[in-house]
């Protein structure tokens, strides 16, 4: 009972702060890197994204498209982990992230489950445009979290289909799942 109460309060606190500031990656997720065979940790804030933009080649159509996409972003955060064994992380490790995705501004766009792999894509609605994207991909021996903060243009992202491995998704105007269902499916 005490654990449940603590978990609920933590989730509420995280939810309360999520709307006021950027997405938070909990420490328990960061610590997974110590157990992982391989991990990727990318953290790019506004100034670094601007700097990267200065080094993307406007003369190259692919890089120009990335440059335009990145120009409206506030941050990109990627955490991927590959483990030697199953069971190196649990659903409870992901609870603080899922709790943030239960905030009204977040909605699940698409979800797929197959053979021990579960991928969910969430978008954040900011007035009439998208204010963020989260990809949560869990596997038996792996975990990937991608957080893109800022005015993400899914159409522009989809136009990069085939480039840098970004697929064509025909994502013009997203029709996300309504918040009530998203709360259920964020678990």
């Amino acid at each position, binding site marked *: 009972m005490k654990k449940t109460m603590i978990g609920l309060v933590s989730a509420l606190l995280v939810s309360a702060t999520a709307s006021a500031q950027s997405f938070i990656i909990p420490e328990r997720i960061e610590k997974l890197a110590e157990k992982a065979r391989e991990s990727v940790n*990318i953290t790019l804030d506004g100034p670094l994204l601007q700097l990267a933009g200065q080094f993307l080649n406007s003369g190259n159509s692919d890089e120009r498209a990335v440059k335009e996409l990145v120009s409206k972003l506030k941050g990109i955060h990627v955490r991927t982990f590959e483990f030697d064994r199953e069971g190196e992380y649990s659903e409870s490790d992901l609870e603080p992230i899922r709790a943030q995705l239960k905030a009204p501004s977040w909605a699940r766009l698409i979800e797929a489950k197959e053979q021990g792999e579960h991928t969910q894509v969430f978008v954040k609605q900011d007035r009439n445009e998208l204010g963020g994207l989260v990809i949560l991909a869990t596997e038996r021996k792996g975990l990937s979290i991608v957080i893109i903060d800022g005015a993400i243009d899914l159409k522009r992202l989809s136009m990069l289909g085939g480039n840098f491995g970004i697929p064509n998704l025909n994502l013009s105007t997203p029709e996300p799942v309504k918040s009530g269902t998203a709360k259920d499916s964020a678990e």
Partner: protein
Amino acid sequence: MGTALATGTEFDTAANPLEPLNFEALVARHQSMVFSIAYHFLQDRSVAEELAQDVFLQLYRHLDGLESANHVTFWLRRVTAHRCIDHRRRRRFPLLSLDSVAEPAAPSSPADPLLTRRLRGLISELPAHARIAVVLRYQEDLTPEEIARVLDRPVATVKSQLQRALKTLREKVLRVVGDGRS
């Protein structure tokens, strides 16, 4: 903090080798070591200086508890390492800071300066404990056993982290060197 070590001083001073006069000598002697550990871990010059200053302030307050020159060195490495890890934990989004634009002075003649810089960048992407282990191994030339004592972790864990870190660095260096986009 830390276990008492066998005595064996390198300081040929008077009766109390750790009186305030020698604190100055300790700062002069160890400032490069402490700052370098912090800088290579954090890749941020100004934060590294702040952290290094705090380490020496802590040393000043704990001088009475230290027994020898070796103990001081061990203590400084341990406190610096733990402060680096704690700093990393406190930051929600650890950033590659633009403050570290000017590289600190160091002995020159790298064979491949670009590789050296990229290696530093890749090291800064390692998880905190692996990163500090690599810094202590290759900056301070400590053995895995010595690193384990400094970090208060099992030797097997340190060895495993070092092996994984080197494997990761090896692969990332090959990827960066072979990446036509960069």
